[in-house]
């Protein structure tokens, strides 16, 4: 075993405010976009910065990518200080902004070649890398068409390819799947996971709960310029909230009460109650709790008509910390936000 690698991104006490012209007071007002953010991203992980609009996600990302100077605090990216050595940081990172930034009148290939050559690839190396990425991102026939003619999903794929043309150590993406349909979204997640598996550290911002939850290895939830929770999504959800299980057995109330009493004594089941012919459980470990429920029912020869598990979401974490829901305040687009994470109902005929 070698020594643990240095963090790919290390941020301490980061602060940034903006003067906004024409505020309530003449002469404008100051908005504190980032108010003391601390976080560390390990090399080779997908790190998600989750929060509602205006939480300071994009500002943080812009500071880390050298686009914006911080007012205070330290930020090291790929081993270099963003303030003191922005040039070195820029060589080691890739960036996919919200706007994308592909040159629309140029072809995909021209975009890629320019990016590659700016980072010092020879023309031959850039051509090889371009062919490789066209293959990976399924841009084969598109490569020689003007980007203007691409669909949204195709353009996003090109933009990600542009960001990794030079094999950066850390790839930053600002709201990478906003505006993508579910298929393109799943596709991009897959690409990002593959990049991660290849050793690239990925730092993304998102206001989608499922993107933070399912794609990210670790998440920082931010609100009003501060980190309010930081950790693995599973860990956060478990820390702040528990699984809830609903089981509907084909049995009378007496049997249900007896089963519930028995289950309440199981260590990883926090509570068990009977409601309208169903047993409702709060569990710290849904899988083992389900097994215990089925075991208890089977021991009495009671068949199960239906069982459902509702897992906590990162929204529960946000709710606990802020008293608000990410779903309400998160996206002005509303409906497109975050599907629930796995409230699956399975018919379980015993």
């Amino acid at each position, binding site marked *: 075993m070698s020594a643990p690698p240095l963090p790919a991104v290390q941020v301490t006490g980061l602060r940034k405010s903006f003067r906004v012209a024409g505020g309530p007071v003449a002469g404008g007002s100051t908005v504190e976009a980032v108010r003391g953010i601390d976080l560390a991203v390990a090399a080779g992980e997908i790190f998600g910065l989750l929060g509602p609009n205006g939480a300071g996600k994009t500002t943080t990302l812009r500071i880390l990518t050298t*686009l914006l100077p911080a007012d205070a605090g330290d930020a090291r990216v790929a081993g270099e200080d963003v303030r003191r050595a922005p040039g070195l940081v*820029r060589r080691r990172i890739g960036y996919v902004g919200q706007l994308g930034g592909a040159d629309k009148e140029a072809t995909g290939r021209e975009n890629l070649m320019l990016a590659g*050559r700016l980072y010092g690839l020879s023309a031959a190396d850039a051509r090889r890398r371009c062919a490789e990425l066209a293959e990976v991102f399924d841009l084969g026939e598109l490569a020689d068409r003007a980007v203007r003619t691409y669909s949204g999903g195709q353009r996003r794929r090109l933009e990600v390819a542009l960001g990794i043309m030079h094999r950066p150590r850390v790839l930053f993406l600002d709201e990478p799947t906003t505006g993508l349909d579910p298929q393109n979204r799943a596709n991009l997640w897959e690409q990002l996971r593959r990049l991660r598996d290849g050793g690239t550290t990925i730092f993304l911002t998102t206001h989608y709960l499922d993107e933070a939850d399912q794609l990210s290895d670790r998440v920082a939830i931010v609100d009003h310029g501060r980190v309010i929770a930081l950790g693995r999504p599973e860990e956060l959800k478990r820390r702040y909230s528990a699984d809830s299980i609903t089981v509907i057995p084909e049995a009378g109330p007496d049997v249900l009460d007896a089963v519930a009493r028995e289950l309440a004594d199981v260590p990883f089941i926090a509570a068990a109650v009977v409601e309208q012919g169903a047993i409702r459980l709060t569990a710290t470990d849904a899988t083992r709790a389900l097994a215990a429920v089925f075991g208890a029912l089977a021991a009495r020869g009671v068949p199960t008509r239906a069982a459902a598990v509702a897992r906590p979401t990162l929204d529960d974490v946000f709710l606990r910390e802020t008293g608000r829901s990410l779903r309400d305040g998160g996206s002005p687009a509303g409906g497109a936000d975050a599907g629930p994470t796995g409230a699956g109902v399975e018919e379980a005929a015993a």
Partner: protein
Amino acid sequence: MTALAPFTLQTGLFFRRKLLETLRQPVWIITGLTTPVLYLALFAPLLRALAGGPAFPPGHVLDVFVPGIMVLIAFGAGMGAGWPVIWELDSGVIERLRVTPASRLALLLGTVLRDVVMFAVPGAVVIAVGAAFGYHVHWGGLALLFPLLALLTAACSATSSALGLNLRQIGSLAAVVTGAQLPLTLLAGILLPLSLGPAWLRALGHVNPLYYAVQAARSLAAGTVAAASVGVGFGVMAAVAALAIWWGTRAYQRAMA
């Protein structure tokens, strides 16, 4: 893996990108070539009536007018640079390039050099067409006229890019550029010699950098290479171009929230 591309290569890459952008818009090439020729065809006959009159410089009317058109082309070739800058701000192209280690000066110079080409090609056409209609070609003077006016194009191009980066709105940029265009060109004696105007107008011309370019251009076009106005013209244009390029580079460097 990431040994950075040398500065000259970066500049070349950005120049190529900008040149391709122009070549994709045949409309610009067509108007870029026809407008100067239309000036010659439509405006020169008007001046013919003035030639030989009081205060009008001696010589063939085109000897006075061709250098003016050349300055106008050099000015126009540069002043358009700011528009694509705003499109590139809006589409995130500049943001993406600012995260690369590419030199901001190279980024600016790519556009500047493209604009110099967009001056030189129509400029050569004007000289050729003008010569066919009576303009006296002085090769020595022309050899200096093109570099002099390339400095003017560079100054205008860098200024326009800097304005685009700072104003960030097409409307504001258009207002500033068109607002500046009339006094700058009129007070430089580009189309009509300032010597036709009253003393106060001539005095005002002396604070306009473009005036010195026009004076130098007239000397050079007439084949007078060793004139004081040529030295002054080069000095003023070099200073203005350097200042504008510094400003444009700084605008690319500056953080844009």
